[in-house]
């Protein structure tokens, strides 16, 4: 192309060969420049291959290499902690992280050691710590990480009872799985370091099974409610009964005091009377008799008294039954 372009116009521009050289040199310089420098980000390390062979690893900044594809650079994000999710996917991270709506049961459903079924979601975080190994040791790196992570979690869960997985063994699974995954990744020379494994949701399969698990929680609430109901009934009656018991005893105490004091009083009076009686029994007897009769016949509270002569042969008493004489008169008046 260049030759053909130059040939038809040699006489018009005498400086043309020079221009061509300048252009050529410029092109070469630009290519040289473009293919000799590359930028490595702070989060990255760059592996440089010379003729396809490993040459060196360089850090962040503007870096130099041999041009024309003699040396090639591969930038690897070694400082970034990368995340891989199982059983769920993050759609958009942020303050309110959005998770993909659909689940991935083919990842998260697994068997426990007691042959139950459980749904586990988890996350693995890792960092590339050997960029050379990361680039050239394993072909399907992400798939490998995914496969091994699944296999290890499956195995850990498969070794435990469902209740252990849901409860106390959670942290152990995380720790153990991290160790085992690291071992396997090292075995492949994947060049990554597992930062952490975090189990997220550990739930029984959605639907009736989950409802049954929920129902156990509810039943515990029910149980406590029933026990409290029992206690309520108890507490409603017993303190009251205790009070009533004290009342009975108090009443008895009162009776006791009254009885004894009455006795003491009665006896004191009797004794006093007897002292007086002893002085002259006859007179005192008569006096007491007459006083008593007086009382019986005339005291204000005395009832209706009718006295019949002892010499009267017959007496037909006419009495209103059940009513007082006064009432009869008033009652008759109203009639």
């Amino acid at each position: 192309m260049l030759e053909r372009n130059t040939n038809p116009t040699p006489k018009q521009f005498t400086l043309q060969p020079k221009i061509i050289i300048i252009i050529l040199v410029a092109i070469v310089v630009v290519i040289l420049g473009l293919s000799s420098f590359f930028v490595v980000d702070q989060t990255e390390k760059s592996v440089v291959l010379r003729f396809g062979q490993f040459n060196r690893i360089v850090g962040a900044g503007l870096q130099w290499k041999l041009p024309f594809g003699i040396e090639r650079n591969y930038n690897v994000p070694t400082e970034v902690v990368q995340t891989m999710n199982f059983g769920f996917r993050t759609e958009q991270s942020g303050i309110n992280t959005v998770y993909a709506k659909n689940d991935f049961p083919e990842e998260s459903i697994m068997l426990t050691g007691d042959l139950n079924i459980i749904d586990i979601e988890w996350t693995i975080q890792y960092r590339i710590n050997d960029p050379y190994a990361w680039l050239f040791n394993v072909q399907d790196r992400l798939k490998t990480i995914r496969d091994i992570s699944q296999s290890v979690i499956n195995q850990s869960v498969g070794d435990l009872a469902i209740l252990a997985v849901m409860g106390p063994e959670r942290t152990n699974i995380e720790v153990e799985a991290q160790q085992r995954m690291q071992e396997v990744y090292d075995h492949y020379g994947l060049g990554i370091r597992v930062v952490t494994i975090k189990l997220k949701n550990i739930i029984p399969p959605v639907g009736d099974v989950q409802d049954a698990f929920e129902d156990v929680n509810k039943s515990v609430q029910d149980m406590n409610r029933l026990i409290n109901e029992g206690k309520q009934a108890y507490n409603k009656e017993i303190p009251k009964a205790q009070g009533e018991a004290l009342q009975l005893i108090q009443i008895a105490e009162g009776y006791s005091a009254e009885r004894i004091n009455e006795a003491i009083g009665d006896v004191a009076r009797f004794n006093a009377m007897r002292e007086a009686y002893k002085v002259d029994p006859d007179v005192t007897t008569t006096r007491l008799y007459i006083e008593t009769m007086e009382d019986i016949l005339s005291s204000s509270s005395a009832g209706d008294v009718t006295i019949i002569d002892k010499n009267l042969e017959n007496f037909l008493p006419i009495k209103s039954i059940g009513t007082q004489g006064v009432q009869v008169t008033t009652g008759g008046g109203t009639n």
Partner: protein
Amino acid sequence: MKKLITTLIIIVVLVIILFILGPFYILNEGEQAVITRFGAIVNTQTEAGLKVKVPFIDNVVKYSKKVLSWDGDSQRIPTKENQFIWVDTTARWKIIDPLKFYEAVNTIDQGYARLDDVVDSTVRTIIAENFLSEAVRNSNKINEMIITEQIKAENVEDTDQLKSLTQIKTQSDTITKGREKLSEEMFKLASGITIEEYGLELLDILIRQIRYSDDLTTSVYERMIKERNQIAEAYRSYGEGKKAEWLGKQENDKKTILSEAYATSEQIKGTADAEATKTYADSYSADPVFFEFWRTLESYKKVIAPLDKILSTEMEYFDYLYTKEGAAAK
């Protein structure tokens, strides 16, 4: 000047042509190559770098030297006890003998196809020879752990009793091999074939996931539900029982408290009565005659006074109505 440029350009073009067709080729890290000449293998290269070949005649076939993943479809396999499960396996492999691989397999895709055959049948064989729990579990750890429900009862006795009530005492089968061992067996069985025959090496075969077949899943769900129901019932029943106990205790305590109070109060009254009686007796027995007289009069006052009464004048009290001698006149 013009000549110089022309020659320069020609040289550049020639060099480029030489490089394209030429004796050099670049083998990257992670690659290996088989060099064939007129179809026959003349050399293999496994180290990265700038390599030489005969232009036009030599043909370079590059293979990956990296660890490759193999991922089979889930297989529905019956276990030894004839339960159908889905087994999903994954394997890692790499080409260790490019020459052999070129001869026997030729392309990576073909390599996958061979692995499909070998690994699938291996997995099938091993799973079918073993019980389900051998494939699911890896150790007998499950039998050493006593797992109890997480209970928040109000006191220790309740908690203990509930724990014993809800503890599911199913002893899991003791396994002799476990999942890792099975993986190893699969690996041994398969790797025997692969290296010799295909020039590729398996690094491992791992069970990625085991699932029940669909109809089995349904019945397992049923079992899980029943197991939960049973525990839920235990809690509820325990609650009912406790409630009844409290109600009984209420009845018991109430009666006990009140009857004790009754007993005490009667005793107090009795003691008081006794003391009063004694007080009376001590005093009255000093003069029984006067006591009788006096007490009778007292009683009259109290009892007869308020009554309506018809009295005959025959009483001593009325004696003086008839004669001034009174009683002495009789």
